[in-house]
């Protein structure tokens, strides 16, 4: 255990950039939910109407939590946000533990530290202590937000504690997984799988008898029922599980060598397949894993949104305040809802496209672009390789959402035609997504160093405009700078090709200009 305090200080120092954003994100989510819910369902009558609509809607229950939470307005907030924030907190803990344990060993940085006066278990202990502090902060922040927005203090503390408990379970789970796998990505994959299973189990349990929810760390948190009975003893379950997982992690780490895992990585191919012979195939090979993840994630999101599409009509009739959030108001409620959800999916597709396009810069700064460009690969095909993946990938991601939403929405309204309809609808948003990608290409050509920042600012800007323009009353030109503002809000509005063609032409011009810059500049700096 020698060296834990020093390591912990060092870890905190390194976390200054990333961790505060995660904490801020979780806090803002809860803050927005608490204020919105209290505004919409603050009266007993409104809450009663909500209970009637939602109490029998399995899709909403599957996405949220057990209906017992709807007993009070505080519980309603927990009902809506707990599962979602759980996922955020779990991922935060997963990456936190992963990057301070396995990723450090993988890069060899841990070797340097371990050669100093640092005990064998010290990096693991320090990482767990860091996670402990982080989850304490999560608990404190969320308690403060809930109590600060006027909810009872007791329930607020329990809510914070339950969320921290979810975080602790996933931190310790990652600590154990980091001993098993030789590389951090594989450990993340395993933990993400457990997280997915935890969500599905609690969804099935909450819809059914509730038994399956007890197999899920997210279920444990929800079944403390903050503001709806305040069952403190349930917290024993996650903390006992965390203690067990720490014991497993320590036992496993004693049995393995530094840098090794318990699972040997699978060997790769001795020869490249015939197709891996050009920059397009290379870019595809590098990004296919993350593309599959994004497509699966958006397909699931589509399934979830689609499943409640039909009940949205009833829901809005019961809760007229909701209509204000929908473009087009209470008329054509379902189409307005579908347009809103596809628009949000398009923002996520743009985020994928930006991440995919920025791989080019990552290749450059890591030095991996150099051997590629030293072959007969010109800069045009190098760029085109990554660009093709970003463009086709964002189309695929968006289409996956449209198909997912079409399938569940089609099932609820018994209309198979919804599948091609929503797939087509989602593609109407593609030109705007592509323009965001093209802006990244422009930055990569002329301003490579701040390209990543510029790309994410573009995504953030479009998101703010799309989601909040109405609430903030922004001047017209600020709105019009987002390509999403020019995209017809299908299926609510009619599809007019003229703006879409303009956006595609602008995207093509931006790509051409970006290439002109890339041709002229030094590579690798």
């Amino acid at each position: 255990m020698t060296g834990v305090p020093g390591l912990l200080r060092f870890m905190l120092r390194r976390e200054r950039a990333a961790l505060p954003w995660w904490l801020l994100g979780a806090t803002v989510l809860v803050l927005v939910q608490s204020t919105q819910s209290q505004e919409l369902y603050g009266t007993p009558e409104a809450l009663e109407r909500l209970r009637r609509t939602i109490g029998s809607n399995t899709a909403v229950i599957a996405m949220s939590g057990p209906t017992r939470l709807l007993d009070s307005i505080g519980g309603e907030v927990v009902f809506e946000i707990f599962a979602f924030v759980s996922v955020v907190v779990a991922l935060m803990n997963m990456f936190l533990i992963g990057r301070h344990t396995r990723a450090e060993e993988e890069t060899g940085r841990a070797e340097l530290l371990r050669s100093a006066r640092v005990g064998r278990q010290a990096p693991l202990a320090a990482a767990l202590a860091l996670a402990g502090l982080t989850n304490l902060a999560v608990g404190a922040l969320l308690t403060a937000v809930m109590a600060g927005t006027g909810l009872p203090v007791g329930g607020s503390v329990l809510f914070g504690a339950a969320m921290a408990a979810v975080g602790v379970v996933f931190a310790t789970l990652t600590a154990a997984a980091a001993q098993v796998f030789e590389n951090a990505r594989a450990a993340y994959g395993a933990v993400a799988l457990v997280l997915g299973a935890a969500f599905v189990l609690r969804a099935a349990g909450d819809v059914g008898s509730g038994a399956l929810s007890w197999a899920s760390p997210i279920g444990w948190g929800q079944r403390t029922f903050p503001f709806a009975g305040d069952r403190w003893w349930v917290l024993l379950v996650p903390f006992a599980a965390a203690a067990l997982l720490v014991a497993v992690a320590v036992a496993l780490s004693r049995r393995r060598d530094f840098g090794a895992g318990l699972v040997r990585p699978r060997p790769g191919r001795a020869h490249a397949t015939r197709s891996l012979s050009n920059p397009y195939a290379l870019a595809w090979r590098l990004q296919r894993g993350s593309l599959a993840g994004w497509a699966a994630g958006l397909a699931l999101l589509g399934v979830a949104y689609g499943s409640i599409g039909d009940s949205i009509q009833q829901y809005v009739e019961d809760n007229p305040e909701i209509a204000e959030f929908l473009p087009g108001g209470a008329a054509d409620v379902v189409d307005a809802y579908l347009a809103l959800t596809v628009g949000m999916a398009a923002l996520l597709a743009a985020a994928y496209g930006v991440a995919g396009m920025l791989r080019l810069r990552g290749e450059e700064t890591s030095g991996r672009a150099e051997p590629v460009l030293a072959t007969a690969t010109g800069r045009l095909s190098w760029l085109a390789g990554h660009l093709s993946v970003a463009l086709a990938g964002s189309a695929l991601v968006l289409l996956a959402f449209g198909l997912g939403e079409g399938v569940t929405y089609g099932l609820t309204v018994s209309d198979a035609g919804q599948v091609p309809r929503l797939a087509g609808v989602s593609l109407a948003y593609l030109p705007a997504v592509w323009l965001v990608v093209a802006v990244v290409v422009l930055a990569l050509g002329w301003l490579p160093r701040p390209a990543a920042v510029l790309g994410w600012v573009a995504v953030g800007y479009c998101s703010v405009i799309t989601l909040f323009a109405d609430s903030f009353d922004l001047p017209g030109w600020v709105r019009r700078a987002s390509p999403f503002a020019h995209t017809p809000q299908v299926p609510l509005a009619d599809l007019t090709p003229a703006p879409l063609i303009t956006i595609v032409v602008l995207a093509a011009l931006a790509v051409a200009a970006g290439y002109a810059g890339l041709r002229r500049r030094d590579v690798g700096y």
Partner: protein
Amino acid sequence: MTTSTEAISIAGLSKSFGRTKALDGLDLSVAAGEVHGFLGPNGSGKTTTIRVLLGLLRPDSGRVRLLGGDPWSDAVALHRRLAYVPGDVTLWPGISGGEVIDLIGRMRGGLDRRRRDELLERFDLDPRKKARTYSKGNRQKVALIAGLASDAELLLLDEPTSGLDPLMESVFQQCIQEVKEQGRTVLLSSHILAEVEALCDRMSIIRMGRTVESGTLTELRHLTRTSIAVETARPLDGLEELPGVHDMVLEDHHARFDVDTAQLDTVVRRLAPLGVRSLTSTPPTLEEMFLRHYGEVQP
């Protein structure tokens, strides 16, 4: 000097990054078919020069010709005729070594499958491992095999053996000998002097972005000092006044000193009448030449 027999010809090449002057009027000339050593301390501009030759960096000023073409504007066409091995090899973590070798080879325009497998054997590399699990030495081998498996007429090697063990170092030297026998050209940037001494026909030493020496090892030696240890019958005196004599350690009949190789003749004439009993003359090692150039204080 005709440009047609020159694989690389650089004159007055300058390149700055912001305020840092990486190259400051560098000259380099590599004849077709020779193995040319490219030497210089860390940060002297070797890698920058090679990146300019690869068309990754655009020169600020100076004339650069590579295989008769312009490395910036003819990059793709020229790259079909050359192979490059970086000194600090980073690979794609999830792709196996064998796949990387095939990919790089194919993107250059095809590789010799038989030669590739033979090199894998000689360098004792497991091509099935994912790149993230390779050690530094093994990553270096991947890049070396990818470069050597080609039949490119020019090899640009930037400290290609960093991280290799002595056994692999000797395999590398054999491979370069074979390349040389096939009449191909090699630019070898290296810190391993034994390697340069064994392989290179000519060499250039650069410092602070400028070429300070260029020539064969014999020519370079001529410009430096020879160490002499001598014992004579009559006392040795007055030697230190001779031009070109340095660092004299005198003990009446024994003397140890360095002499500028150009002045060797004068010194030996002066010694002869003193009745030489023993005399050892040591030509400067490459190490000594290096230390002299590398260690020189800024002019």
